């Protein structure tokens, strides 16, 4: 899933900010942060608007097109 996210980051970097955490199991602070946000399985992805409200959450592999649709809707 990481390569897909990397591709999307390249495409949508001007519209969205990307916060990518690949060290959930190695970094204590990241692990605690993930626990606080209810991350149980990896990969888990969230889309948060400018006001800090979570718009969508995906657990597991997701189709790239679905993510693109969500990005386009949240940041037209």
């Amino acid at each position, binding site marked *: 899933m990481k390569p897909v996210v990397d591709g999307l980051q390249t495409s949508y970097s001007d519209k969205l900010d990307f916060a990518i955490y690949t060290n959930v199991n190695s970094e204590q602070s990241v692990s605690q942060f993930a626990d606080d946000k209810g991350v149980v399985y990896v990969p888990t992805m969230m*889309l948060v608007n400018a006001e800090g409200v979570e718009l969508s959450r995906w657990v597991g592999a997701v189709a790239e097109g679905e993510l693109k649709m969500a990005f386009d809707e949240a940041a037209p």
Partner: protein
Amino acid sequence: MADYTPQIDSQIAQLLKLRGVVTPDMISGVSEQDANSFLRMYVGQHADEQLAFDGTSLTAGIPTLAEEPAPQAATTGIPIDADPGYGVPPPGGYGAPPPAGYEAPQPEGHTGYTPDLAPPEEPSGWLWLLPIVFGWIGGIIAWAVAKNTNSRIARNMLVTGIAISVLAACMVFGLGFCSATASAPTDTSWPATGRVTFYYFGTPS
């Protein structure tokens, strides 16, 4: 006194045949004294018929039965004594063995008791490991192996395998549910960065 005529004889015979008993008043046309005499004469005339006249009525006599021989045991020839009464123990005491050569009578057609059903066999105890370890799959295998030996135990093995599978599924589901609820997000607020942000938690590759 009137004469004992054949007509009177046939009248008495007919009354005796129809009613079984004849009294003097049944004979018509004669006095009671004459009728009484006629009945006595009838008895004398028909001595071979075993009639009985007690002075008031004439009846046909009941033949006496020949005496029956005393009952004896069919196989041993031991005579059976008169009923000793309840509570009197047999000569040999209760539980005494039967006399030598005694053979208990059996009903016709009976060839003696031969049990047809042998005690049910039990399958190997190791077969129980199949449903315990492999769940419903092991239960089906154990059932297939044991069904010809003991169908009841085979069914129990199948039920055990299914029950263990169901129990394991409940435990896994329950633990997963508990884990999910325990990890429910406690902080649903995200920092307001002023831009839409995509968060990714995953592996490096």
